[in-house]
């Protein structure tokens, strides 16, 4: 009978290991899903602000170089691409440096946490704490499969599951259980495993979601303030900065779609008809590249109208976001000027606090590439708050500077291009890039070879039905 059949259809005909990391292996059982998954290698689509095409964000907006000065994001920061690139991109980024061996930095293995299903495999062999403690380089031969099936599915019946242990821990700390969520929530939670703000806690660099006080921008700030936490000290203004990373899940809470029960998968993994079957489109991408299936089933408007709606929201948020960046760039540079003129800690303390708050607000919105559509009003509210705080910092700075005998606009460097901005903060992009290329030719292949040999010993799943 059909109902029974329906329930059987997703039971794989192959025996797949609990943490089988190879997506091809799952693909044997589910060729249709695997095929759409593979389409993620396409990097042609580029929307006004998103898409899977390669976009150098520092190039598009050199202000970022100043805001991230002293932190690895000022070296290299690109727009995200499809999940199949997760491994290549983390190899490529200058943020991971060129470690010569398994004990060298700059990064720890926490950087792998969201880059693929091998993480789940390795982490159960050691403990999460031990895993995060190792250097990123130590896992180059272990973590090689891009984000895939094992990150979201139980192999026994293909139900959704969460591999991200720190997510479960964060929920436990909030007194909530993430294991027994209904399917509708899981269609969002599988994404929340990675598309969430995080930090590396303590020397062990333990991956931690900072949600103990709530998920709003102010709640998370309070959490960090209590720890007096800082990701780094800004070298120009000396501000202790909190870096926000892709709080897509957090901001999504403020979305009317979320409030109406729409999940991430509804838009980013809509159903498609494949032959005579509806399946889930596993090409996770910008919905603007797939309006018919993602938006237009719920909304009867034309594709053009809906894209216009999206761009209108994005434009408005973007415009004010840039205004806030301008203020923050000025604030950092004016603060440096004040220090140089002899300002003391006591004078600067309230100012640095305001810069910290303003930059946190800016980054919270800027780092979530979907936010300006997901939650435009909340994004705008946060930016407005940031504008107020950054401006207040600059007002106080003008009083400090005047008290030190300087009562004029502070001269600003030329940061009209990525090159100029990087030169100003002392980054030699070309050199770093060359080193990276050399590393990719000379060091990386060795690790990848080891991985291949290891995987060749793993049998492919057996057919059982």
């Amino acid at each position, binding site marked *: 009978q059909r109902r029974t059949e329906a329930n059987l259809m997703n039971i794989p005909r192959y025996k797949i290991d609990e943490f089988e990391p190879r997506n091809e292996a799952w693909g044997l059982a589910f060729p249709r899903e695997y095929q759409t998954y593979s389409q993620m290698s396409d990097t042609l689509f580029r929307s006004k602000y998103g898409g899977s095409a390669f976009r150098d964000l520092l190039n598009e907006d050199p202000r970022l170089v100043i805001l991230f000065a002293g932190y690895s994001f000022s070296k290299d920061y690109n727009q995200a691409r499809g999940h199949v690139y997760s491994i290549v991109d983390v190899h490529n980024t200058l943020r991971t440096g060129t470690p010569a061996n398994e004990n060298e930095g700059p990064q720890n293995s926490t950087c792998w946490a969201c880059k693929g299903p091998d993480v789940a495999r390795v982490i159960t062999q050691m403990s999460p704490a031990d895993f995060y403690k190792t250097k990123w380089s130590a896992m180059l031969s272990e973590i090689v499969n891009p984000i895939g099936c094992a990150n979201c599915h139980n192999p026994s019946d293909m139900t959704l599951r969460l591999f991200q242990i720190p997510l479960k821990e964060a929920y436990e700390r909030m007194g909530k259980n993430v294991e027994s*969520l209904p399917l509708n929530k899981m269609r969002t939670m599988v994404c929340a495993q990675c598309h969430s703000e995080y930090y590396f806690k303590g020397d062990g660099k333990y991956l931690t979601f900072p949600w103990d006080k709530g998920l709003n921008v102010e709640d998370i700030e309070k959490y960090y303030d209590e720890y007096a936490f800082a990701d780094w000290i800004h070298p120009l203004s000396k501000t202790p900065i909190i870096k926000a990373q892709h709080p897509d899940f957090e901001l999504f809470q403020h979305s009317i779609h979320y409030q109406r029960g729409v999940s991430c998968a509804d838009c980013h993994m809509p*159903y498609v008809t494949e032959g005579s079957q509806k399946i889930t489109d596993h090409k996770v991408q910008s919905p603007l590249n797939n309006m018919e299936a993602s938006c237009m089933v719920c909304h009867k408007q034309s594709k053009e109208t809906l894209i216009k709606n999206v761009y209108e929201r994005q434009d408005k948020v973007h415009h004010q976001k840039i205004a806030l960046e301008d203020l923050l760039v000025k604030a950092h540079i004016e603060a440096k000027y004040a220090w140089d003129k002899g300002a003391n800690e006591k004078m600067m303390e309230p100012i640095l606090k305001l810069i910290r708050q303003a930059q946190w607000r800016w980054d919270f919105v800027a780092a979530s590439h979907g936010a300006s559509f997901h939650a435009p009003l909340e994004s705008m509210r946060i930016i407005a708050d940031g504008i107020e705080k950054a401006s207040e910092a600059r007002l106080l700075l003008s009083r400090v500077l005047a008290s030190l005998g300087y009562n004029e606009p502070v001269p600003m460097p030329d940061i009209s291009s990525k090159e100029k901005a990087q030169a100003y903060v002392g980054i030699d992009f070309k050199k770093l890039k060359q080193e990276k290329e050399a590393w990719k030719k000379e060091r990386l292949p060795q690790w990848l070879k080891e991985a291949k040999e290891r995987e060749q010993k793993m049998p492919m799943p057996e057919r059982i039905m």
Partner: protein
Amino acid sequence: MFKWVKQTLKLFQPPPNWRVPVIVLAGIFTGTGLFVFYTSRAWSYLSDEPATCVNCHIMRPQYVTWHHSSHREHATCNDCHVPHDNIFRKYYFKANDGLRHATIFTLNTYPQTIYMHKPGQKVVQENCIRCHGDLTAMVKANVDLDAILAGNGKRCWDCHREVPHGTVKSLSATPFGTAPVPKTDTPNWLKKLIK
């Protein structure tokens, strides 16, 4: 069989000294009941013809939106709104719903906005799957209302929001929509008198 009916009927026989008032009362009830049944066109519910649903003008937006929908050629009101798994459930459901709506309509106590209640939603969900189950077999949306209310799936029309009535149900959305105009029950002689 006949005997059993007779015995059952006997159970309802009032004691002899109550007979006259009871017959009078029963007459009034039956008469009123028949009037309600007739004037409200509750018998519409027994038919499968969509035009009969608009006998109640408050069904007009639904009729008009359906009439302009992709389903007009494929599904009538009752294809969606009445169970189809077995005859007994079909007519039981119809009678139950029909009489309740007829009463509400005649008593004029219906709300400004009408909604499909839980039993109705259950039936419609079943019917979507009845027709489209092959297509949707693979996906978890292919589930019944209980699973949906537990959060394990969505109603088909949570996504297919326009099927078949559209998202705007007010008259303003269908200002010029024409529905078959219900015939008046007022006899001609009475009409003349009123004039």
